[in-house]
């Protein structure tokens, strides 16, 4: 994610409450793999890569359980709008108060694990931490959606079309 004014602030429990239904839905659909994810305290101590400190690989334990999963990407897209990510990054993530997410410029890294950490922890130029607002499972769905951006940004994600869900290495 670029350093340009990323946005918003701590989304609190209020946000979580508002979106309880969506989250409950996604939690119900979560595969068992999410149970093996590190807790947030561990994750907070992970080094975060990016364009300043290139890191060749994402830590194994931060593998996206949904990579390429079309229905997860569609759910991630709903979350992107419902959690007001679109408020800052714009509908379809073209950017505004926060940077665009469909290009190749990532300050904090564009690998799935790096995107996950940016959403989880927040970033200093304004990106809020969603740690309290969303469970890991929902974060991964957001990551899955974000990874689909930049391929065909003007077209909506179609959950029935797996061809669009192959992901893009940023």
């Amino acid at each position, binding site marked *: 994610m*670029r350093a*340009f*004014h*990323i*946005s*918003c*602030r*701590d*989304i*609190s429990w*209020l*946000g979580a409450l*508002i979106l309880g239904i969506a989250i409950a839905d996604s939690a119900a659909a979560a595969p068992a793999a999410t149970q093996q994810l590190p807790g947030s305290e561990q994750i907070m101590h992970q080094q975060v890569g990016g364009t300043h400190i290139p890191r060749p690989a994402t830590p194994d334990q931060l593998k996206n359980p949904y990579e390429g999963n079309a229905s997860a990407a569609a759910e991630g897209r709903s979350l992107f709008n419902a959690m*007001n990510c679109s*408020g*800052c990054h*714009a*509908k*379809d*993530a*073209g*950017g*505004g*108060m*926060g*940077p*665009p997410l*469909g*290009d190749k*410029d990532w300050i904090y890294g564009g690998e799935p694990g790096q995107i996950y950490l940016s959403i989880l922890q927040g970033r*200093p*130029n*304004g*990106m*809020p931490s969603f740690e309290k607002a969303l469970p890991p499972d929902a974060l991964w769905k957001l990551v899955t959606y974000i990874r689909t951006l930049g391929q065909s*940004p*003007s077209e909506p994600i179609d959950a029935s079309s797996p061809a669009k869900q192959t992901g893009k290495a940023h």
Partner: protein
Amino acid sequence: MHRNGALANRQYGTNVKKYASLSQAEWIAMKLANFVSRIAVSLLTVCALPVALAAPVKDSDWPMPAKDYANTRFSRLNQITTGNVKQLQLAWTFSTGLATGHEAAPLVVGDTMYVVTPYPNYLYALDLKSGGRLKWTYKPEPARAAQGVACCDVVNRGAAYADGKIVFNALDNHTVAVDAETGKEIWKTKLGDINLGQTMTMAPLIVKDKVIVGNSGGEMGVRGWVTALNLKDGSKAWQAFSTGPDKDVLIGADFKPYYESDRGKDLGVKTWPPDKWQIGGGTVWGWISYDPTTNLIFYGTANPGPWNPDLRPGDNKWTSSVFARDADTGMAKWAVQYNPHDLHDYDGVNEHILVDLTIQGKPRKVMLHPDRNGFLYVLDRTTGEIISANPFVYTTSIQKVDLKTGHPIVAPGKEPHTGIRVNDICPAAPGGKDWQPSAFSPQTGLLYIPHNHLCMDVTSTEVGYIAGTPYVGMEVSMKKGPGDYGGVFSAWNPATGKEVWAIKEHYPAWSGALVTAGDVVFYGTMDRWFKAVDAKTGKELWKFQAGSGVIGQPITFQGPDGKQYIAVLSGVGGWAGAVVSGHLDTRIPYGALGFVNAMKDLPNDTTPGGMLYVFALPGNTP
């Protein structure tokens, strides 16, 4: 025609007199010994008060972004004329080192120029005696996260000078006063919270012993206010909210609105769904004017939040309005709501230029206000009566302004509603004109307006309030107006209500305007031109290609060498230029609240980068 500038001229005249009496007092003090010195000291005290408190109005200086309290941006300097401006050449430059939108006006006080930058809001002092040598830099160190709650790039619109202090706002809601000589911080007052989405981008106005500032964040569910701080120590003197009960809005017994719909108790509560006024916008991020003869300040309030109008039935007072307030107490004298229940993000923050006009044979104390809704209002500044309101841009959304009610008549089919797409709303959300300030020449009697030529398609959406995040509820896609151009720079005759000449620009004319006694008008374009045109005809006389698009406010001053200079910041950005300064995705129309779609081609014409340019005529002597 000369009557038109009476206010500005009177201000000059008054202050010349005050300076004269001060010099006399000093002369007496110097000439006479102890016996007289006590009298002289008391004279100085008496005389220094108005001088210190009044705006400095020396022709050679440029002490506030609009030059004077009337907000004319008119300079009486006349070395540069329509005849010789073609010889204008670069004198010196200075890089700000930043690559976001540079909307500020440089200030000049004596031998020093002061430049305030976008975030991180550096204040540079440059020595005019030595080609802009850097004297000092002051860094307020605003919180980094403030960048994330600034709706439309991290701009700053300038500083103000008075009483030996440079005062400006940092993005993270601190107003700071800096010693103009040394660059040392004198006071720093925190006025808002970025965690609630508040920022500050406007330029303060200093009136007598008070600094008047306002907040930004109308897209974040911020509740707008204007606040007066004591110039001496930064303590709060008064604060007036734009929404809420009368006691918060500083509406009392003296409040005499001209129009029926603006009368009643606690309208800032009653014209909203329950409690929505608390997150209803009406921020104060534009320009403030001041009339010393009535001691009133005038300023506009911004759009209501969220943009989706279905979520806030009612007039939503006092958003998209203008207030006249007593400068000492903040108490409201009158108000007019330009756009009750605003539908299109038509803020009321644009400048109010105070002039005295002869209308239908009668002298009137008026103010000129080119509103976001595309109409140019002439108001009686003593009562708030709208004398006339004529469209100054292409418009489809507002049919006319009803002078009986003061309300605009919205065109059928141009009202956004949840889930419904409404196409071809003109002007678009940034309005017929956004923040970019006009200039008024008492010599020509014309108003010079940099403005937009934009339309938009919108779909209103549901949105919930989450503190510190956008609260908009509208998907917007803007486009250039009919003819496929995005901006116009025009001259307007407020006495007749008619355009005199107009220059089409490919992009919105997003810079400020400057007009001089040499009858030369200056403005900048987003495709990197800085232009001089004839104030009477609009004929292009000179232009200079800057390093980046020009969205700053040009100024003029007389240097220590006696020569007239012109100065402007280049550095594209702002809401219109965010596509470049924020490297937004041009494939997606919704970026920057929909502005990207109208500016997709801007990256072909400019890159970001802040640079100050100072121009002068060739030769060593004036």
